[in-house]
């Protein structure tokens, strides 16, 4: 399942490293990464491949905790929600 992981907040050392480490620990592959500043916010986005059958609630809770530790907001959402809202196919 293709998902989008987003990180919003203040840029600091180690965000990508910590997020990548947690992804690796959960056996989640990174497909694409981008980071930019939007409206003054640091925004990092990763397209990731979440293995089928993974518990989404637990995954979100794990990243939410990591976000709190790093002082940023981290979410993981199925990529279809972004496609549905912005693309007609």
């Amino acid at each position, binding site marked *: 399942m293709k998902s*989008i992981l*987003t990180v*919003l907040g203040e840029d600091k050392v180690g965000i990508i490293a910590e997020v990548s480490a947690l992804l690796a620990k959960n056996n989640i592959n990174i497909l*694409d990464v*981008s980071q*930019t500043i*939007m409206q003054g916010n640091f*925004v990092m*986005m990763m*397209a990731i491949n979440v293995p089928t059958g993974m518990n*989404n*609630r637990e995954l*979100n809770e794990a990243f939410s905790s990591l976000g709190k530790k790093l002082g940023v*907001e981290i*979410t*993981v*959402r*199925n990529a*279809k*929600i*972004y496609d*549905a*809202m*912005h693309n007609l196919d």
Partner: protein
Amino acid sequence: MNSEQIYETLQMISNENLDVRTITMGISLLDCIDSDSDRACQKIYDKITQKAGKLVQVGQQIEAEYGIPIANKRVTVTPISLIAAASHDNNYVKYAQTLDRAAKAIGIDFIGGFTALAQKGYQEGDRILINSLPEALTETDYVCASVNVGSTKSGINMDAVAQMGAVVVDAANRDYMNNAKLVIFCNAVEDNPFMAGGFHGVSEPDTVINVGVSGPGVVKNALEKVKGQPMDVVAETIKKTAFKVTRMGQLVGSLAADALKTPFGIVDLSLAPTAAAGDSVAEVLEEIGVSQVGTHGTTAALAMLNDAVKKGGLMACSHVGGLSGAFIPVSEDAGMIKSVEDGTLNIAKLEAMTAVCSVGLDMIAVPGNTPKETISAMIADEAAIGMINSKTTAVRVIPVPGKTVGDTVEFGGLLGHAPIMAVNPAESKRLIERGGTIPAPVHSFKN
């Protein structure tokens, strides 16, 4: 990955209160009809708990995977006046209690369908259900009730209008919150996922998933970027925003329908405010340009908003339905409450606004000593607007015993609080006492 699009969605969800307001499963109870009311109630309980047993769980799974809040999970059923009529019971409170028990067993937020459709006259079940309403609403927690008293096709049943005024007063005297769960309609729709007026029409499939999406905060935010620009630009901005929000509803609805092995019905895109800051239809109207909702120009702004919302939603999903437009429940909208408190918004203006938007006089607290005929007359006025304009209108008015203009009443939770609004003191008694039927308008004859 398109970073800007992803960021826009993030902002909508995190900062602008975008949510799926409800996933509502419609369940037909036609196959539960039984001449023995105990057997009928058992069949009703079994069918609801079996068909919608996983509704809450599926909703939570979608929330977790897609990160979109789903505020309510609800069930609507076939109007109970039709289901219970065969039992020849003289009171349908037992049916309401059965719905309540089923709702609690499956963990949903509301169940709608304690309903009578009496627009062209009463069958016996309609009469009994309406008589049962005050007690049924008092004895249950999650049951929502509605009565359709008029339609463009058949006119207005003024006997039902008169009776509903008395029902509202009786229900208020038992518990003023009762009337927050009771809607009186003209041109009620059969696939409405929103409460308190939702029920499952007889022409609907056995079960169906309907979705209600909201997002006044998203529309307001989008409009902040087009300050001072012509109305065409405003309308276009609302349409684009409504399109995106509806697409999200279409996705969530189809996911829920697949997971529950149920046909997907409609998406109802209605800007439904909550008492939370930044989730207000009044603020959208003020962003369009009126200094405070209720002043001159409000009706024009609302007409454009309502129409643009519908247009934006139409292409975004396979079937648009329900009410789709802008809701203006006073107690659930911080901007509306402030306008009433400041004296800018009154019932007369709200009535005008209901001619151009979805639904009608909604969540309006009035003095506890308001005569039942005055409430009936308010219902008649709204029904007339709906009948002539071929649109749904409704009344959800809340007399609060012991309170008068200048007082405030707390409803709690999503229902917010409301200042008691003044009603016109001149009587409407003779009008209501006439009873009978207001004939259908000339433009109803299209055959």
